[in-house]
């Protein structure tokens, strides 16, 4: 497996305050990589930098190509898609319009492809189909999460970055979301998963990074991290023996 995303020596600052320091991270094609860490560790900031929303120093390579000079939109067109922490849905537009816009970067592929992508998303989230004429701003929290994920899938991502996809969801839906993440990987999508729910994230992921106050504290195979006593104590709530 080759690396789809290679981040090296990445630093991101808000004004004078540096929120992410010299972070390195690799995501192999077709794998699930998770980033866990406490609040304010810099996880969202790191995703923002990879997506091009935030200016950053260091190197970000995607398919071996440097990304620094590409705009957010150019990155989207190359298959990098982010489900942001704040979801950033189009509240005043219908569910279906939101989904259709998710395929905006792929508008060159024609009506037919867009229709097929829409049907796939509706198949995956029947709830969204029920609510397709409802305004996105009036959806429940869980439906909003589904819409955010559905809109991202409309862009047919090659690298899908999810910022806390389980935030505020009922346990049953959390399970569903993680099942979908695993399915997507089986379909060849590479996933970079930022999660508070470390246990679920480490279960589904192949590789994990622990981010603490802007530094990579430790990283390793997900199974190894889950059995690391320090990680277990801090993030899984298991007392070290």
């Amino acid at each position: 497996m080759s690396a789809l995303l290679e981040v090296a020596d990445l630093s991101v600052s808000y004004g004078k305050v540096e929120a992410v320091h010299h972070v390195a991270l690799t995501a192999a094609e077709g794998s699930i990589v998770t980033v866990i860490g406490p609040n304010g560790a810099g996880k969202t900031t790191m995703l923002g930098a990879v997506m091009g929303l935030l200016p950053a120093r260091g190197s970000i390579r995607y398919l071996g190509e440097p990304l620094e000079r590409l705009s957010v939109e150019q990155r989207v067109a190359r298959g990098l898609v982010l489900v942001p922490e704040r979801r950033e849905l189009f509240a005043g537009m219908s569910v279906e319009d939101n989904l259709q816009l998710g395929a905006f970067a792929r508008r060159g592929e024609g009506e037919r492809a867009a229709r097929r992508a829409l049907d796939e998303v509706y198949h995956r989230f029947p709830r969204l189909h029920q609510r397709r004429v409802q305004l996105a701003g009036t959806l429940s929290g869980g439906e909003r999460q589904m819409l955010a994920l559905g809109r991202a899938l409309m862009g047919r991502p090659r690298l899908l970055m999810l910022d806390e996809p389980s935030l505020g969801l009922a346990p049953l839906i959390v399970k569903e979301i993680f099942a979908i993440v695993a399915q997507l990987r089986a379909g060849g999508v590479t996933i970079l998963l930022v999660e508070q729910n470390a246990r679920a994230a480490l279960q589904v992921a192949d590789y994990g990074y622990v981010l603490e106050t802007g530094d990579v504290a430790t990283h390793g195979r997900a199974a190894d991290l889950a059995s690391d006593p320090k990680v277990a104590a801090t993030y899984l709530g298991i007392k070290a023996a």
Partner: protein
Amino acid sequence: MDLSIAALLTQDGITNGAIYALLALALVLVFAVTRVIWVPSGEFVAFGTLTLAGLQLGRTPGTVGLLVAMALVAGAMEVAGCLRRGEPRRIPGRLALWVGAPLAIAAAIVALAPLQAHLAVQVVATLAAVTALGPLLYRIAYQPLAEASVLVLLIVSVAVHFALLGLGLWFFGAEGSRTPPFSSATFTIGAVNVSVQSLLVVATSLLLILALYLFFGRALYGKALRATALNRVGARLVGVSPSFAGALTFTLASLLCAFCGVLIGPITTVYYDSGFLVSLKGFVGAIIGGLASYPLAAAGALLVGLIESFSSFWASAFKEVIVFTLIIPVLLWRSLTTRHHEEDE
């Protein structure tokens, strides 16, 4: 006042109101997508009338000079941008779009001008020329400042307004123009004389409004503009670039202004600096809609047209005063009834 005068004033008011409505829609659209208060929209209206008037006389209109100058500046900016981002391969495509297309329009107009072609052909040429100015203006003046505050963008708008006034005087000269009516026929309904010209103006406005409605409701690009207006970050994350949305918005808005110019030409004499007052009336309409609601803005503009028409009958000297004083109670009413959105996400 008897009924027939009232009917006449109403007809005048609706005709003017229909034109202001197009302006109001252009202003709301530009503000919603780019947060620019588009002060120089009036210059686009004036350029529309003056371009058509020039073509009528068989002269090459000054718009051509403006178009060429702006295309060259925009082209230089695009080349610099491509080089800075390390994308020299994209230079030919960008030049074709930003320099090639405007120059082709300019060349077509130069060739067309002495022919004194049919009025419809001249109208199409006018719309093409003035519409092309819109995205060029966005590219040169607003795109580099896309992240700036509303206040900075407003200051830029005022500067652009004065710059275009100066250029307008230079390119079109100080004398005013009026274009011939599209039709001088009239017919009567009961005791009321209705001019076909007025009907044409109203019908054109209605058609344009319907076209806009369908564009924003159905077309993917229309939805992309709405999305940008609603949530810029969200729009970027699905691949709608703010500069693309801005250029498309200015194209639509300047097309609307060009239509205004063509429609208003037979109604009143237009000078290079006449546009500002016209656009202010559209602006009053847009403000009634809170710079956010398209139907309210159009309705507000219609109201402005009617008030203007009736006040010109009762107190002709104060007609502008009355129209612009109207904005004070409207602002009061809005400030009392609108809840503030600052805290919202």
